[in-house]
């Protein structure tokens, strides 16, 4: 199957999925309140898919493990919360401001972090992330401390279905932009820095500058996801910035497949699905679902590090030969 055919196939497959996603809420709406609940859940899946895909710019394509990515998600959420609740800004404007503020934060933090590699990068991003988490926690007057900010106004036409569609449109736009970035010459150089740092330097890539730009873009898109998430639950909480949330996003990328562009989106949706379904199966699972998830993740790391997409690729290749 030559390259061109492969590309077409992807586009068809992509378009079909998007069409399905647009119809989904209307199908779900016919299942009464249970369906309404799943509209909320799929909206959350879309938002978290955007967050995981933004992280993967740094993780899968940049080869850098950031444990501070949730900070940009949280900053985006607080931007929307504060602008809408305290300054009465409209949702659209707030959703534009959120990524900018998050991107700015990523620029400041990124400037320091990209100078380090490997473990040190991971720990410094964790340190900065926790620093922001602590500040949000202590600065009671501005961020509401551990109570967070509740009651973010929501335009009344934005019922569950409409908000789902808004999130879907934003997600698709961001997804295409990020995809363009990854396939651009900039994206290729970033991937080269992951493959072989020295070779990247030899052929004249200003590694630090590329990694910083990549870091800022990832922060930008994480900010959008944070903003959408704040409006979903109509509150912003310090806990959005905690490093364990960055950990969840990293796992979403691993489970989905870090080296495929669509992997993280699939991974995060599967994890959210598991989180809900595992507790629904049986009452006894409610207390041990977290440990089950832990074992699933352990299994993925040991036996399927290339993630679900990787597995799918391997299986289809085996079937073909």
């Amino acid at each position, binding site marked *: 199957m030559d390259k061109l055919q492969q590309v077409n196939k992807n586009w068809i497959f992509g378009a079909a999925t998007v069409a399905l996603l647009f119809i989904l809420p209307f199908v779900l709406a016919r299942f009464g309140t249970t369906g309404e609940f799943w509209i909320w859940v799929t909206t959350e899946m879309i938002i978290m898919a955007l967050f995981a895909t933004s992280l993967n710019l740094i*993780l899968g394509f940049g*080869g850098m*493990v950031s444990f501070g990515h949730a900070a940009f998600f949280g900053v985006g959420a607080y931007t929307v919360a504060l602008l809408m609740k305290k300054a009465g800004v409209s949702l659209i404007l707030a959703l534009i401001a959120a990524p900018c503020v998050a991107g700015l934060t990523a620029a400041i933090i990124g400037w*320091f972090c990209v*100078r*380090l*590699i*490997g*473990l*040190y990068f*991971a*720990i*410094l991003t*964790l*340190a*900065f992330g*926790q*620093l922001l988490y*602590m*500040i949000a*926690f*202590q600065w009671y007057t501005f961020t509401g401390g551990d109570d967070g900010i509740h009651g973010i106004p929501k335009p009344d036409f934005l019922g569950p279905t409409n908000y789902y569609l808004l999130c879907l449109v934003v997600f698709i736009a961001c997804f295409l932009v990020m995809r363009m970035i990854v396939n651009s010459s900039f994206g290729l150089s970033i991937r080269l820095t992951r493959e072989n740092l020295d070779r990247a330097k030899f052929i004249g890539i200003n590694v630090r500058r590329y990694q910083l730009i990549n870091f800022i873009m990832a922060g930008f898109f994480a900010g959008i996801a944070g903003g959408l998430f704040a409006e979903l639950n109509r509150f912003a909480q310090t806990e959005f910035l905690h*490093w*364990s949330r960055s*950990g969840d996003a*990293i*796992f979403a990328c*691993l489970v989905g497949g*870090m080296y495929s562009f669509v992997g993280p989106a699939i991974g995060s949706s599967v994890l959210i699905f598991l989180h809900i379904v595992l507790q629904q199966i049986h009452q006894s699972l409610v*207390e*041990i679902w*977290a*440990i089950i*998830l*832990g*074992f699933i*993740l*352990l299994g993925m*790391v*040991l036996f399927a*590090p290339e993630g679900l997409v990787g597995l799918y690729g391997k299986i289809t290749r085996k079937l073909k030969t």
Partner: protein
Amino acid sequence: MGIEFYLFLLINGLSQGMVLFIVASGLSLVFGVLRVINFAHGSLYMIGAFLAFSLSTLLPAGSIFSFLLLMLLVPLAVALLGLGLEIPLFRRIYGKEHLLQLLLTYALLLILDDACRLIWGGDIRNVARPDLLAGSIKFFDMFLPTYNVFILVVGPLIAVGLWFLLYRTRAGNLIRAAVSHPEMVGALGVNVSRVMTATFMLGCWLAGLGGVLMSALANIDLGIGMEKIIECFAVVVIGGLGSIGGALLGSLILGVGVAFIQLPLSRAAIVFPYFAMALILIIRPWGLFGKPER
């Protein structure tokens, strides 16, 4: 307030620092030799504390011998648990890329923390201090808790013991040699994977010991694992990954730093570890004593 007050803060900071050193040195050692940053190290520390609690209920309360027995048995149990983790899990990821190692230990953290919840449940627990160490010693005209002073004695003993093991024994030579060239150590006829397993168990032993000492210092609850691993990262980063001397200095800086900052600006005290971590990583990424990553 006077000088005794500041002296008091110093001693308190040092004893907190000592417990932190014992746990962080384990993390640093494991990283130094195995090149693996073990997120689950904090969970092993917490398991040590919970085991100390469970065992203490079986032993006669208040006697110093039962506490010493705790200090003997619990770290060994945690080291054995380490063995049970190292062989099936860690051994499969040596040399693999950092991300997979991080994720494995992170998954382990989720599992172990949750296991503690299922086994020991939610109640807040602690180990009663043995009568000998329960009271306080008069120091000038101030009272210092005997237990803190006890830790100030135990801490340096562990530090010296660890130094002696690493710098004055063959095992120490093998461990430190494996830090620079594990394959060469193998080519010289030493079973390197056994050295790595032994090092990992030593790291877990230290985490367990830290857990026991902490169990009588403050409360044991299900959050201490996650808290401690972050503090250990700060220590190991400040002191330099893989350097035990660095871990000692780093943990004392943190312990005393938090103790002194806590009073004037209590809010800043929680931020201090992260601030110090970020500062050191920016100025001197490999910490005070570490070596630039090869």
